[in-house]
């Protein structure tokens, strides 16, 4: 049996091994990182297959919490870990584009980020969740300002401010729970939640909801997103949207469903999700820079996932998880493509990128990515959106869905504008993409099409959503 802790241990181990390797050969760093991530992906797949049979509960090294690491890997957690690792692997290919020193730190931070996000989805203990959140955040701060330019610093600073406030709230929430229940194990908390003083419970919930909301890009806690995404190096942006955001939203889902099963709070989550979608899509529409537009669009997509979680029926949450998958793949693809476009056009302005997509190596994956994000079948973006909406209908949220669809039309509008610019004929000559650019693009595109045409495996996983909603792993 494969131990899920390896998913956390391997990146951590190699993160600290990298300086040694760099002494030996600096050039091998990217390959080592990619290899580590590949290894991690394989392990993640094995762990996932294991978890599909039965949820894995494990306490590492015999230490009792809060010192030891408690792992709780259900099918969904395993699924998410697999998504995160796969995305990390593919993005790490694109990371080879990075030329700016100090590369050693870059790869170390990347591995730490992977470790943190893996930890967040795998852990079964809220204090560990906090720890991994901090690891993720700190790695993210470092990566966000990696470019060492004004934009990077500004974005990173805002991320630091909001992220640390969020972490503090998480800590407060955990403290409140611990003070009353003397336990940190999620399932334990869930079982004994009735013993808590209701007011304390509300405060704890609000704190946790807020804290993870920051990471999950929930309105109005997502203000850091556009600038941080904009200032960070391109591969890092892709990682943020497909790794940290996903672990954040999964932590949020854990808070909502596994820990506090607040049925009557759910409509409020739906409203928050709707607001997130609304503001994300609307502000994205008026953006002129490609990365900012994608960042706001990312907010919109996360809002949709939050909505799905808030609707709370099996079909909607299935949709939400499907959407996490499709968003991780689609947005990573778009951010990588955006990275290439910015490099090729030497500007972030979309209006300067005429005809850049006419190279099929960029254009076709880009088109597939955008269509998937728009929710067009037969790409993976479709199923998530459709199921979330149908879940909403089955709960009778007609007006909310109608508003959501209106916001979605705005999304279509700006993506269609982007497509038009990117594919219109132009005389400009752009440098051809290197294999480090188009290989990840094509890999993502293949995943998007493959699971879009044949989503059976994903739905097989999502059968476990009902158990998750009932408070399981």
């Amino acid at each position, binding site marked *: 049996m494969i131990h899920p802790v390896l998913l956390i241990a391997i990146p951590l181990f190699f993160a600290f091994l990298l300086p040694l390797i760099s002494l030996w050969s600096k050039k091998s760093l990217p390959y080592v990182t990619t290899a580590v991530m590949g290894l991690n992906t394989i392990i993640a797949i094995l762990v996932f297959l294991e978890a599909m049979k039965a949820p894995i509960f494990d306490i590492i090294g015999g230490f009792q919490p809060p010192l030891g690491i408690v792992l709780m890997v259900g099918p969904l957690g395993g699924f998410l870990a697999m998504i995160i690792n796969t995305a990390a692997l593919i993005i790490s290919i694109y990371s080879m584009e990075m030329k700016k020193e100090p590369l050693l730190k870059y790869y170390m931070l990347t591995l730490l980020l992977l470790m943190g996000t893996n930890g967040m989805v795998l852990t079964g203990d809220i204090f560990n969740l906090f720890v991994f959140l901090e690891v993720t955040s700190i790695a993210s701060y470092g990566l966000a300002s990696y470019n060492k330019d004004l934009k990077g610093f500004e974005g990173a600073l805002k991320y630091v401010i909001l992220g640390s406030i969020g972490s503090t709230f998480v800590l407060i929430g955990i403290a409140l729970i611990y003070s009353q229940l003397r336990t940190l194990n999620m399932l334990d908390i869930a079982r004994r939640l009735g013993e808590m003083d209701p007011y304390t419970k*509300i*405060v704890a919930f609000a704190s946790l909801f807020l804290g993870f909301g920051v990471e999950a890009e929930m309105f109005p806690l997502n203000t850091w997103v556009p600038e941080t995404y904009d200032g960070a190096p391109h591969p890092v942006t892709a990682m943020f949207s497909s790794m940290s955001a996903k672990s954040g939203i999964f932590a949020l889902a854990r808070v909502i469903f596994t820990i506090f099963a607040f049925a009557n709070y759910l409509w409020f989550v739906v409203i928050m999700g709707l607001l997130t979608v609304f503001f994300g899509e609307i502000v994205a529409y008026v953006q002129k820079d490609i990365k900012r537009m994608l960042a706001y669009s990312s907010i919109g997509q996360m809002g949709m996932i939050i909505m799905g979680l808030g609707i709370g029926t099996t079909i909607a949450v299935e949709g939400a998880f499907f959407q996490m998958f499709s968003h991780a793949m689609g947005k990573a693809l778009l951010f990588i493509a955006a990275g290439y476009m910015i490099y090729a056009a030497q500007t972030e302005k979309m209006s300067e990128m005429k005809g850049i997509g006419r190279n099929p190596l960029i254009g076709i994956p880009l088109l597939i990515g955008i269509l998937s994000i728009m929710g*067009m079948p037969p790409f993976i973006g479709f199923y998530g959106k459709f199921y979330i909406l149908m879940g909403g209908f089955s709960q009778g949220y007609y007006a909310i869905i109608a508003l959501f669809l209106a916001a979605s039309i705005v999304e279509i509008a700006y993506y269609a504008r982007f497509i038009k610019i990117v594919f219109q004929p132009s005389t400009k000559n752009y440098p051809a993409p290197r294999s480090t650019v188009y290989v990840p693009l094509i890999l993502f595109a293949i995943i998007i099409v493959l699971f879009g045409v044949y989503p059976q495996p994903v739905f097989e996983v999502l059968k476990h959503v009902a158990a998750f909603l009932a408070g399981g792993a």
Partner: protein
Amino acid sequence: MEIWSAFGIFVLVPLIGALLSYLARKYAVYLGLIFALVPAIALYPFYGKEMSTVVNIGVKLNLAFDVTTWFFMLMLDTVALASMLFATSYVRKGEGGFSTLMLLGLAGANGVLMARDFLTLYIFWEMMSWSAYILVLRSSGEYARRYMLFAVLSAYLLIMGIGIYYYYTGSFLYSAASGIPLSGWAWILLFLILGFAVKMAVFPLHVWAPYAYRSEQPFVAFLSGGLSKLGTFGIFMAMYSIAGVAILQGFGTFRSISLFGYPFAVLGAFTAFIGTILAIFQDDLRKLLAYSSIGQLGYVMVGLGLGTPLAVGGALFHAFNHAFFKAILFLGAGAVIYRTGKYRISELGGLGYRMPFTFLFVLFAIFALAGIPITSGFISKWMLYEAAIEKKFVLIAPLMLIASVGAFLYCFRILYGVFLGQLDKEHENVKEAPAPMLAAMALLMLPLLIFAIFPGWILKWINEILTGANIGTLKYDTYAYYSSIGGADMLVFWITFMLLFMISMYLFTRKRKVTKVVDQYDNYLAGETPPYVQLHAAHNFYKPLRDTWAPLLRYSVDRAYEKFVKFFIEGFEEIKKMYTENPQDYAAYLGIAFLIFLLVGWWLL
């Protein structure tokens, strides 16, 4: 297993063709032709077969094949075949995109026709939409976004309808419709019909069409001739197959017409009128045809809304005719554009002498469009008129009738402006369109001619559809068709017409000897004009009429939409200001959010 062969032939084969023609770009157009040919020919043995299956790809695709599907496939696949045939000379060689996307669209369309649950319908519907979007993008990028937004609007309206259906039934299956209250049905049908009506470009959801129809003409022939019929199919399914006559009648009736359908019939008649009036004043050939499409599909909407056997039968028949004649017209326009590179009617002229076959086919299509009885175009219009008149609808019938008179105006504008009148010096050496183009148009002409002589053949199929949906039956025999107030016999018509034509011919040619053929400048002009001045009177052809209509033409739905959008974008700019880029504000948001979370939680406690 038979259904598998149907699914394979009509959906998978085009999909495979799409993939292959993308990979083998060099032979893409021919591959496209072959893969469009397979479903178009394989269709015939499938007549009258009924079968269904479930394909599980993770979601369950419920597919079925019946005579309705067959009837619509007949028009879609034939039009697609003709378009692909036309495209073999039209599209640049070695370009994979066109065939790939056309075949994707065809697969999507066939999938929509075979779908028997909403999820499947939606999947194929969107597939068809986005492939069409990229095809529009290829040639008229400027307006592709408009098409996309309306395509998505249509999809989202469908989603609303589907969602409400799902709320009541907990299933996507068409057959699961039971126990839905009438108010539920009202919303479901409203959303579904509006969603499908976007594809049919029904007023006021028509503004995408004039722009999208400026793309590559073979594709537009498929879009206008074929894909817009999916709207017809969808509305037919929603109203008469999923809901059914009993539920429609449950809304109350007005002279035995469902009160729910009646507003849509009025909307359709209004669309027919508006589309026609706008078409009269267009100078861009493609835009003219687009508005004409809008108008003609308005007729179809009337029939679907009225819901008597005659009306629905007429609607289906008219949709069938429209698929063919509008495809010929767009292909004809494509041939003209291909040979001259021009699309403004006022810049063309006299091409009928250089492109006689193209002219003949277009002329014939125009006979069908105008409803001249020598084509089947008349019969479908006749059915729709009589359906309205026998129920004594004094608003719908005159609107439809006057719209068809208006159709003569723009029809003649095409004929005169493009094919007759004076040939421009520039076009002296224009050649006839290449053989594949002519073959494509000839192929499309056949049904229009055949069903004008033997209307009973097609009415038999339509009758099967109508009885299948419990709407009622038509009165017809092989040559004749009847309503409760009248009828016509095509055999008598044809024989008399032929005899009289021969008599005229005899009178005319009796004393004719060798005649001197003169050129176009040898004209009676009261000795006023030197021969080198271009005297093709096609510019602003209906100016007097236009002047009369000018006060009304100022109001444009187009501009209303633009204003609407502008209003929202200004609002968006305001909302953007929320992201102040000031961390202090952001921290404050966090605080406020926490407060709200707490308050809500406290309130809910």
